[in-house]
């Protein structure tokens, strides 16, 4: 995991990336959102926006975990933060089809041996939750782009927030 390279005296010297991946399990979403808030704070994202970063990255990771769980995918969820002119967060899953198109939910969890597949209420709330994640993200994040799925991979949620001085990067 890289640290931030932020030359406080003369603006940013180079773009920096923090990248990690995690097993698509609910237990690790909290870790991802806490890392997001910490990296964003370190990058200089305004304090008043840190809750938003934490919530948004948590929502995007939740969505990715739900999409993997829905398909019985054990591939890692990938998270990347870039610090340049803006703080950019990208969360990528490997689920190729949109969850909403998966009407055959009775078969969900095949291969994963997931007992939750029999828990109708939990599944229904999960379905609901994935839809709500996008609603929350849309309402929360000004710069939000969701791409995919494409032939080779799943979807990517890209979000960015301003960094102080990004408009004055040429102040020398």
């Amino acid at each position: 995991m890289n640290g931030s390279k932020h030359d406080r005296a003369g603006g940013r010297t180079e773009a920096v990336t923090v990248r990690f991946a995690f097993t698509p399990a609910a237990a690790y979403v909290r870790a991802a959102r806490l890392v997001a808030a910490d990296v964003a704070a370190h990058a200089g994202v305004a304090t008043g926006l840190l809750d938003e970063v934490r919530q948004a990255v948590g929502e995007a990771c939740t969505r990715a975990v739900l999409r993997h769980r829905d398909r019985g995918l054990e591939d890692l969820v990938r998270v990347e933060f870039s610090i340049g002119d803006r703080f950019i967060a990208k969360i990528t899953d490997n689920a190729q089809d949109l969850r909403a198109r998966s009407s055959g939910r009775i078969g969900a969890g095949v291969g994963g041996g997931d007992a939750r597949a029999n828990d109708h209420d939990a599944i229904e709330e999960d379905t609901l939750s994935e839809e709500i994640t996008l609603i929350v993200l849309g309402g929360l994040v000004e710069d939000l782009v969701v791409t995919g799925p494409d032939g080779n991979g799943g979807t990517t949620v890209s979000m960015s927030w301003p960094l102080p001085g990004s408009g004055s990067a040429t102040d020398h």
Partner: protein
Amino acid sequence: MRGTSGDGAAEPELGLSLSEVGEYAVISVSGEIDMYTAPQLREAVRQLSSEGRMRVAIDLTPTEFCDSTGLGVLIGARRRLSDSGGSLLVVCANPRIRKLLDLTGLDKVLDVREAVPSE
């Protein structure tokens, strides 16, 4: 309500405390509601309804964090209680979570109050 998972790691804390105010069974939620902890809240509501407590209030005022999974639990709880002739009240004087309810439009779907009515 803190424990350890199978691999010995500490589980994130979700505090659920039960009380009664007027005709409502109140679940006060502290800590973080996310996809890992939300099942505990879902189960608490289910437990109350299985005991015949159909008027339930979930108090999110002390909640530190709530994500869409938590919102899903609220919607599911409302539906289940309504189907059984009961009702769900969401109590929230917490601006961060109120914002979440507002931007999803759930403030119009759920019965959201600042406090539990005592009568």
